[in-house]
């Protein structure tokens, strides 16, 4: 069964001048994770806001758990959790205050709200800072608390809008672990991200969007095949280019591409190919200036799908963009 269905969504801003969504359709199977991948301004946030009943589309329809988000927003709100760059918590209050307040607003009752808040704080390793104002939290802690606030009533469908944008690598890693844990619990998740790696880590399926449209859809592997997988890339002295090309071609099994002194070729075995290359180069007494595995980035995905890089477009209101960044 499909938990989320969006059909032909259109949304324009500034009296039709800016088209944020241009006939966007997508769906998410119950209990799975769909990652909506795209650059800033592609329409990710607009999509989430429509599905989470915060925004009405100009045309098109959408359902969450079979309920129409436009006709019955109140019923949808009882089923969903929303967290990310725009949904927020009260920074002057403590983590405990916030969670208890949201529990009460979900009509859990006082005792149950407190119990739930304490459980969630424990689960997201925030018990020690529960009594401190959110202002004093690190970016990662703040996001975890935000996520906790969206889980107060075990939502059936969860929307996470760029949950790790602006976090440092450690915060991002922690957030991923938390999200993976949640997914095991069986929630249907729609996650937006600008990072291919994030989509790769968390999602069953990826929908790539650009200029308000879904331009590609599939599993991470399928998309990567489409984009091209990892490449081994090596930079050597001019004198070594020819010999290095031979070595790389042998390890890759495919044709190499040479750009000035940088040679690259697709590989399928990842770090094993890298170690093989290092060993072979060492035996041949070639000292590479630089060597590494290059994974396809969002730019690569875009380049191969659209022929242009993921540039910032103006498709979402400026105020919305500003909010998420700190």
């Amino acid at each position, binding site marked *: 069964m499909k938990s989320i269905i969006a059909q032909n969504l259109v949304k324009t801003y500034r009296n039709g001048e800016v088209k944020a969504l241009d006939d966007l359709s997508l769906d998410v199977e119950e209990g799975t994770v769909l990652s909506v991948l795209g650059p800033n301004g592609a329409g990710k946030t607009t999509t989430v806001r429509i599905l989470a*009943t915060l925004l009405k589309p100009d045309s098109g329809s959408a359902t969450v758990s079979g309920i129409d988000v436009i006709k019955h927003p*109140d019923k949808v*709100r009882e089923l969903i959790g*929303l967290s990310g760059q*725009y949904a927020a918590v*009260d920074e002057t*209050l403590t983590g405990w205050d916030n969670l208890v307040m949201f529990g009460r607003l*979900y009509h859990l009752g006082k005792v149950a709200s407190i119990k739930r808040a304490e459980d969630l704080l424990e689960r997201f390793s925030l018990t020690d800072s529960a009594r401190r104002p959110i202002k004093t939290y690190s970016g990662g802690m703040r996001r975890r608390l935000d996520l906790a606030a969206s889980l107060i009533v075990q939502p059936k469908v969860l929307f996470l809008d760029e949950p790790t944008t602006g976090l440092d690598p450690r915060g991002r890693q922690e957030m991923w672990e938390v999200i993976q844990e949640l997914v095991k619990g069986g929630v249907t998740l729609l996650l937006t991200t600008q990072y291919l790696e994030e989509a790769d880590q968390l999602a069953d399926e990826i929908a790539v969007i650009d200029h308000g449209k879904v331009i590609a859809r599939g599993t991470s592997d399928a998309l990567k095949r489409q984009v091209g997988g990892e490449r081994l890339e090596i930079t050597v002295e001019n004198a070594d280019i020819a010999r290095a090309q031979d070595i790389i071609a042998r390890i890759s099994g495919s044709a190499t591409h040479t750009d000035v002194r940088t040679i690259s070729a697709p590989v399928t075995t990842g770090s094993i190919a890298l170690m093989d290359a290092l060993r072979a180069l060492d035996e041949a007494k070639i000292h590479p200036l630089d060597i590494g595995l290059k994974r396809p980035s969002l730019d690569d995905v875009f380049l191969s799908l659209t022929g242009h890089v993921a540039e910032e477009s103006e498709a979402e209101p400026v105020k919305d963009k500003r909010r998420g960044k700190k």
Partner: protein
Amino acid sequence: MKNAITDSLIITKRQLLQLARVPEVLIFSTIQPVMFVLLFRFVFGGSISTGQPGGYVQLLMPGIFVQTVAFTLAATASGLAEDMKKGLIDRFRSLPIARSALVVGRTLGDSLLNILVLVVMAAAGFAVGWRPTASVLSVFSAFVFLLLFGYALSWTGIYAGLAVKDARTVQNVSFLITFPMTFLSNAFAPTTGMPKALQYVAEWNPVSTMVAACRELFGLQNEFGATANSFPSQHPLITSIFYMVLIMVIFVPLSVRKYKNSSN
């Protein structure tokens, strides 16, 4: 309906919690009006002669009370704009709560803060010689009246906050409106010194009618207000009630509608 009320009260409680967590806000929002009481009492009090027993402070206190509650507009507006900017409004809107809860809760919270501020100001006024002469009931009704005025203005603040969306801008805009309104009135000085045309503006100004009404309820003659002999100066209480109803009738539906559409 029951949920709509409890939801609103939870939002109100949030504002009280904010005050408890950041007590500086509370301290400064009471220091400022107290400072006004002292400054006006001792700076202008000597130069403005009144025929009232008890002197200028008797006339000043109603003026300062009204000015303070008029500033509720700015407080409500900037508080709401701040919530919008931080994305809190989106969070609330994604919850299964009554749509009106957030705005109703905030207007109630700002009124509760007004109660506290008025109590502190009354104490400060009492300390510098303010002595209402009317019955306890009449004085009490003056304060209820002031709170209602603040509550009505809170709704214009909701509208302003939703329309402007930036806390600092909306605060400046609100002061640009409330400052001239409180000074172009009978609140601090007699209107008789103003040019004739301004006297009429001052007479019809809701701040003047509120001040005049409070003066009556505190047991004073409204000596500053009667210059132009207009209806509002003759019947300040009725005119003020009319103004409050008018503000609410216009701004409650307008604000609720604006809030519902705020992110579309």
